């Protein structure tokens, strides 16, 4: 939207309204309406050329940003194809309301950013600074919401990576060694014929048995394929009272935390179900683990707690939203500098290249979120 406004003004004095910073004209604008030599680099013919060159560079940078995020979107897509049900279940753990609120916040911040650029074009410093500050406030709001989303998940035990532990008795990803029960359906060369089918069978078996609510169903592939695998947690439960007691205690603790979380954060029905699931476990004690979640009617919300691979979805989730949040932080810092310089009166309709470029950056960060939100939260 800003591109249609040329930097050069034929008569700079006409373009500058009486907004009380007329002295800058002499500082920034030469007598011919071009930029003052201090702003115009010697290798550019005109200020338009300099502006356009600067913007071209920014667009190139944005292209690299899109490719950077493109890699993560590809990873998301691949794992979605490999583990479709997992994605369906796991995405229910994300709070759609908070996500939608953040989307709205970012869209609004894009509006204020564009408005700030308009302010620079109109030489209206109040509009420029006010909108830049509003953008920072909105961006910080986004981060605050993100903070509550993250901490809520941490309380549920949804950590990124090795510490991922959804439920009592559910193995941490770090406990699983080898390709046991975790081999993707898509097996690289070497397995040739047998492997993909075998993997599919493994998955089916797991699902079927989990549906039946049988004890230890989910570790059947573990036991079958690798006796030495650290399936100890599950196997030990029926045999050793000590282990059982511990397990129950943990689950009860988990319940308490979950209750707090549900109160603190306005979580939807999904969180309520999560809250129930550990309770069920605690009461059911040693008898059931994965099966009972399902059997007691908590449906898919409960089932995800028994899915060891749920960590993969949340790995992608944390990486994508984390790197996106990092971009937000960088954006806030950049806009902070803009506020400082704008307050000082550095920008005018003749020269506002940094505002324009940071604006472009801010829009791309917004657009990336527009894609992340439906992919993560909605589908």
């Amino acid at each position, binding site marked *: 939207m800003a591109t249609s406004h040329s930097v050069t003004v034929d008569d700079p004095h006409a373009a500058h309204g009486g907004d009380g910073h007329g002295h800058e004209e002499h500082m920034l604008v030469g007598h011919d309406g071009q930029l003052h030599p201090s702003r115009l680099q010697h*290798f550019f*013919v*005109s200020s*338009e*050329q300099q502006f*356009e*060159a600067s913007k*071209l560079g920014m667009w*190139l940078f944005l*292209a*690299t*940003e899109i*490719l*950077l*995020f*493109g*890699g*993560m979107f*590809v*990873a998301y897509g*691949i*794992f979605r194809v*490999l*583990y479709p049900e997992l994605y369906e279940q796991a995405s229910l753990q994300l709070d759609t309301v908070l996500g939608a609120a953040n989307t709205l916040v970012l869209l609004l911040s894009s509006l204020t950013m564009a408005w700030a650029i308009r302010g620079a074009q109109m030489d209206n410093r109040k509009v420029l600074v006010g909108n830049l500050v509003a953008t920072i406030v909105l961006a910080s709001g986004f981060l605050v919401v993100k903070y509550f989303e993250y901490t809520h998940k941490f309380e549920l035990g949804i950590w*990124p*990576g*090795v*510490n991922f532990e959804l439920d009592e008795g559910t193995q941490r*990803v*770090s406990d*699983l*060694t*080898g*390709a046991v029960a*975790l*081999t*993707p359906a*898509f*097996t*690289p*060369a070497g*397995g040739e014929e047998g492997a993909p089918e075998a993997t599919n069978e493994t998955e089916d078996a797991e699902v079927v048995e989990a549906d039946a609510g049988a004890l230890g169903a989910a570790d059947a592939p573990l036991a079958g394929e690798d006796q030495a695998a650290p399936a100890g947690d599950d196997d030990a439960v029926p045999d050793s009272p000590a282990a059982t007691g511990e397990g129950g205690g943990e689950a009860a603790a988990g319940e308490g935390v979950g209750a707090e979380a549900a109160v603190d954060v306005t979580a939807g029905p999904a969180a309520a179900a999560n809250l129930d699931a550990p309770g069920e476990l605690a009461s059911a004690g040693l008898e059931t683990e994965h099966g009972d979640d399902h059997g007691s009617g908590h449906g898919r919300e409960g089932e995800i707690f028994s899915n060891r*691979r749920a*960590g*993969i979805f949340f*790995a*992608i989730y*944390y*990486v994508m939203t984390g*790197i996106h949040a990092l971009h937000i932080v960088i954006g806030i810092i950049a806009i902070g500098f803009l506020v400082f310089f704008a307050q000082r009166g550095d920008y005018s309709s003749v020269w506002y290249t940094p505002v324009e470029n940071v604006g472009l950056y801010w829009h791309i960060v917004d657009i990336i979120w527009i894609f992340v939100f439906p992919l993560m939260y909605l589908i």
Partner: protein
Amino acid sequence: MRAPGMTWNRMPLFLWSIYATSIVQILATPVIGITMVLLVMERLLGVGIFDPALGGDPVLFQHFFWFYSHPAVYIMILPAFGVISELMGTFSRQRVYGYRAVALSSVAIALLGFLVWGHHMFTSGQSPVSSVVFSLITFLIGIPSGIKIFNWIWTMYKGSVWLKTPMLYALTFLFLFTIGGVTGIMVGALAVDIHLHDTYFVVAHFHYVMMGGTVMAFLGGIHYWWPKMTGKLYNETLGKVSALLVFLGFNMTFFIQFVMGSQGMPRRYYDYPDMPWLEPLHQASTIGSYVLGLGLLVVLINGMLSLRKKTPKAPGNPWGGATLEWTHTTSPPDHHNFHHTPLVTHGPYDYEVLFQTSGDSQRGAPVPVVEVGGPQEMDKSVDDGTRQPDSPSDM
């Protein structure tokens, strides 16, 4: 910064190739960047992305890796193409044939180079459909590469070929890179690749393209611009000896590997007890590598010898090149490169204009630096419309 009158179609072909290279660099590097970030996340936090033990997909890593690493070989070879274009023009005393085709084929290679990464993964278990598509697009790369090769050959035809060291390296490039390209078509073919994958054939192909291509062009280019960079001429005899040693040593080292690879010698193996007949071939290849190393050592010694004080200073234009660095400045260039901003009125390989100006069209004679330009001359030619006005749309 840009000389007045320097339009797209007056740029030396080396600059075109650098332009194409920068497209690849900008668009391919972020992908390896995010791959590294994901890898670090996997190692530090244990999130499962690539490691099958954590539920990840190693083939995904291969895709990410090759999405960068295949374009990366074009980052290496495209500037080499540009150097060869310069050498072919200067040492054939002939306008580079098909200037626009050569220039645009660089851009075409840069863009097509993004669509062929899967040909490294024919045996990785990717879907047969994508393998066929990748194979097809790989063949398409042969078209712009062929355009270049044929135009360079045609540049020499009826030219006045001057066999100085840089040109010897350029001819070596033509020979070796053509072999590398043709064997590239071989390993790009699906069925053949299944047989040749991970054998010495691939090693030989890679070296014919990357060493026979990039390194030969680098050696030619460094000899060509050596006087411009250092102000000293290297010893021509030593230069020719090095070119000969490199050519012989290279072929002895790597041509044999085509033979061994097609016989099934796998790469990364130090032992081959089931194939005793390969031993003399391996030994010959090793001897070849010594010859190659000796050749490169001669290059190094030659360069260092030329930097001695007693070596005479190089003239401004020892090769009779027609591009601005030869015609408008001394060797090495002064501070700020040019006394007057050069005014570009014709394409980069207009040798006729050069000889007319210098009054010396004799082959081999150093051409004096032409002092054209200056404020008055510039203004005049702006008026008669020979230069295109600079505008942002030129960018």
